[in-house]
């Protein structure tokens, strides 16, 4: 374990009440039979109304019971959550957590196979849809504790479009200090739009043909009989596409323009795919079609700028309109360093007309369902993995914060590289350099 509880407690003696509270939240060797979080306003995500003055019982890493007036069994660690709000841990639905440390420093970024690099590589080294992020995930990344302290307990780690319309496989992780990988090859990713058309010579038409040709070839694929022509998908790429076609895993397509959302829906119908739209700036224009096919959309609500000609229809109430039309909505942020800001995204969705419970679901239960995480994930249903957060108030507000974070029944340390910087510079008059 990277951040030792003993060290944290030692420091807290010097640093006053706030640091002390943070240290108390550090992991303790749990000898208790279970944990009882008592007296909070609890959002289980099973119904819309929260449970008031409720108790959550956690045992063996799972939610054992939830309700008002539950007795706390003997031997349980009792945590007072009166006046606080309890929710499931938040799930960041689209990140590069573990794949990026410093975005501008290429040596710390493993999220994509860069186009420029591949130009110099032989065709045989192309990975395309076979690119798999699981091998690059760094559990020691400083981004994990920072986002965890902001209430994120699980995340989807996705590849970034690199050198092919199919960008590869994503994975699910939990934001613990070790054993982070939950499920590799969870979803396949691709993109259609202004940038990705460059992969196929600049035309969106050619790009969509390329996606279709790849899937068609994979459907008929027999490795021993396949001899690719130059520029066609390689054996390893088609192996990946075939694995995808033979599974029920989703294809997550980054698409913004309404016409390409329609094209994506047609592609999904023709090949019998589970489709998820990522971005979807103009998804509100295709809301009825998306709802009819039950295709979820991963939205950054704050993306209301016409940043490209694919996004001229961008608007802030996109999520609200999609939800109203019956489209499953999931939220994301624009960058992984601040994946913790998904609650601000959700809050803004509410300000733009989305019902509060749906906005909370879009950062808890809904992403777990869309990506097929372990049953119950993103809820506080009995039997669910015990990921929960105790908030100082409404978690979608900006003036609240996470006080304690639990993953799989363990209290997580709240210390981060950032909290250590704060303590180092809190008092500029103190002797410098050894804290």
């Amino acid at each position, binding site marked *: 374990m990277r951040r030792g509880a003993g060290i944290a407690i030692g420091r807290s003696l010097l640093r006053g009440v706030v640091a002390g509270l943070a240290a108390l939240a550090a992991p303790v060797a749990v000898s208790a039979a279970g944990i009882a979080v008592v007296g909070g306003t609890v959002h289980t995500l099973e119904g819309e109304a929260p449970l008031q003055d409720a108790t959550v019982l956690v045992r063996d890493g799972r939610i054992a019971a939830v309700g008002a007036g539950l007795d706390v069994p003997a031997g349980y660690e009792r945590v007072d959550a009166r006046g606080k709000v309890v929710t499931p841990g938040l799930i960041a639905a689209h990140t590069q957590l573990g794949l990026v440390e410093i*975005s501008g*420093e290429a040596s710390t970024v493993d999220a994509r196979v860069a186009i420029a690099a591949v130009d110099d590589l032989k065709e045989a080294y192309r990975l395309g849809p076979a690119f798999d992020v699981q091998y690059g995930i760094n559990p020691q990344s400083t981004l994990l504790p920072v986002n965890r302290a902001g209430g994120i307990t699980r995340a989807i780690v996705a590849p970034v479009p690199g050198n092919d319309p199919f960008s590869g496989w994503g994975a699910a992780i939990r934001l613990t200090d070790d054993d982070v990988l939950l499920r590799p090859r969870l979803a396949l990713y691709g993109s259609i739009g202004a940038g990705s058309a460059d992969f196929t010579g600049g035309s969106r038409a050619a790009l969509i043909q390329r996606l279709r040709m790849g899937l068609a070839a994979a459907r008929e694929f027999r490795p021993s009989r396949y001899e690719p022509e130059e520029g066609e998908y390689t054996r390893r790429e088609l192996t990946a596409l075939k694995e995808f076609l033979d599974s029920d895993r989703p294809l997550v397509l980054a698409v913004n323009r309404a016409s390409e959302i329609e094209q994506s829906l047609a592609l999904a119908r023709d090949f019998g795919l589970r489709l998820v739209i990522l971005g979807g700036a103009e998804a509100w224009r295709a809301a009825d079609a998306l709802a009819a096919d039950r295709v979820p959309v991963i939205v950054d609500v704050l993306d209301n700028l016409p940043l490209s000609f694919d996004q001229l229809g*961008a608007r802030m109430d996109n999520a609200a309109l999609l939800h109203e039309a019956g489209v499953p909505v999931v939220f994301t942020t624009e960058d992984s360093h601040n994946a913790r800001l998904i609650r601000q995204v959700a809050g803004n969705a509410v300000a733009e007309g989305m019902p509060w419970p749906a906005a909370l679901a879009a950062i808890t239960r809904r992403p777990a369902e869309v990506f097929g995480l372990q049953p119950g994930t993103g809820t506080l249903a009995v039997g669910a993995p015990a990921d929960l957060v105790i908030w100082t108030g409404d978690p979608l507000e900006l003036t609240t914060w996470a006080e304690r974070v639990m993953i799989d029944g363990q209290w997580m340390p709240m210390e981060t590289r*950032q909290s250590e910087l704060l303590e180092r510079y809190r008092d500029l008059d103190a002797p410098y350099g050894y804290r």
Partner: protein
Amino acid sequence: MIRRRPATAGRLGATLLLTALPLAASHAADRERDPYASTYRPRPTEELLITNATILTGTGERIERGAVHLRDGRIVAVGAGVDAPGARVLDAEGKWLTPGIIDVHSHLGDYPSPEIDATADGNEMTSPNTAEVWAEHSVWPQDPQFPLALAGGVTTLQILPGSANLFGGRGVTVKNVPARTVQAMKFPGAPHSLKMACGENPKRVYGSRDRAPSTRMGNVAGYRAAWAKAQAYREKRRAAAEADGEDGKKEPPERDLAMETLVGVLDGEILVHNHCYRAEEMAVMLDVAREFGYRITAFHHAVEAYKVADLLAEQGVCAAMWADWWGFKLEAFDGIEENVALVDRAGACAIVHSDSARGIQRLNQEAAKSMAAARRAGIPVTEEHAIRWITGNAARALGIDDETGTIEPGKAADLVLWNGNPFSVYARPQQVYIDGYKYYDRSDPARQPVTDFDLEQTARGVR
């Protein structure tokens, strides 16, 4: 033959206009003195009394159930017991009133939406010193991002050149009003600014081209060489002016537009806004300023300002910061959410800025996050204090604090009426006033500006 301009026509014209249209004439006179002067004119307004609002004045005060009296685009009075017989009354029961939001760091119009090569006009990346370029000469007033910032309560913003160069050029302060020309947006009388940049950007841009600067010490040598040249240029100009009409007449130096900007700084007329992330670089830049006798008004981005908050306070330099950005490059790796809080607590002038067409729409939310981080760290900060980070303190850094940034008698009526507590994620500006004119109303599509670019677009007016 050189044709001489009729000497009297201009002046005569000006005199005639003076009788008929005093304001236009004063513009004409301004533009005679300064060819680039503002042509902004406040719109006619009605006398208004906004009552029953929770008022955050931007001076640190909070007034419950307060009233503000507006007349002729100015604030006449503010307080709990203000009355104005004859004024139209706007009952703001349940609403909050703040000064207009001011963003000290924006690239709207210079880096508009859509973000394509054809619109990228914010960084003259052809030389490490482009002090001669002016951001205002790139501004596209039809950038659809301007109305979005207005809907977020932004009444004034500083548009800066980018940070590729040691000296990026002059910035411009504008009022966020729909206009056909940038001149009609320019904030009358606002000082020009000079954008300087520390750190990774200049050394990367020029180092990758195998030319100076390629290191941080190269950056500093570049600043010093330019300031030394500017001092010499100023000396030559002064000597020529002093000798004018005397026998030993000296030729003034040939005009050098970059040097004119730098001399403007040395003369205290142009304010330095210095992009600088790291603590030790801020300290070095203060040394450079001391060597050449100029002042740094504000460090921008200032991700590590908390490490030298005492120094900033002592030197009277503002720090303009993000609430929580970090890690996008190495010099941003040490960003913490308490940055604004720690700078503010040290007594330095703390500002929350956007540098983002997304963030500028929600500076109130950015300030709210900084306020929450302060409270979490045990540093008490009230709403009436935190609002200064995006109003009064920002106005001070732009040199327009005698005109806007606070709700005080005599100031411009630049106001935002919020439909709730502006530090709540659920709050939105209900109405936005600039010089007393209601430029935006969330409930009235007729008061929601639409740019040329957004015409016939499906999201027109509903972004």
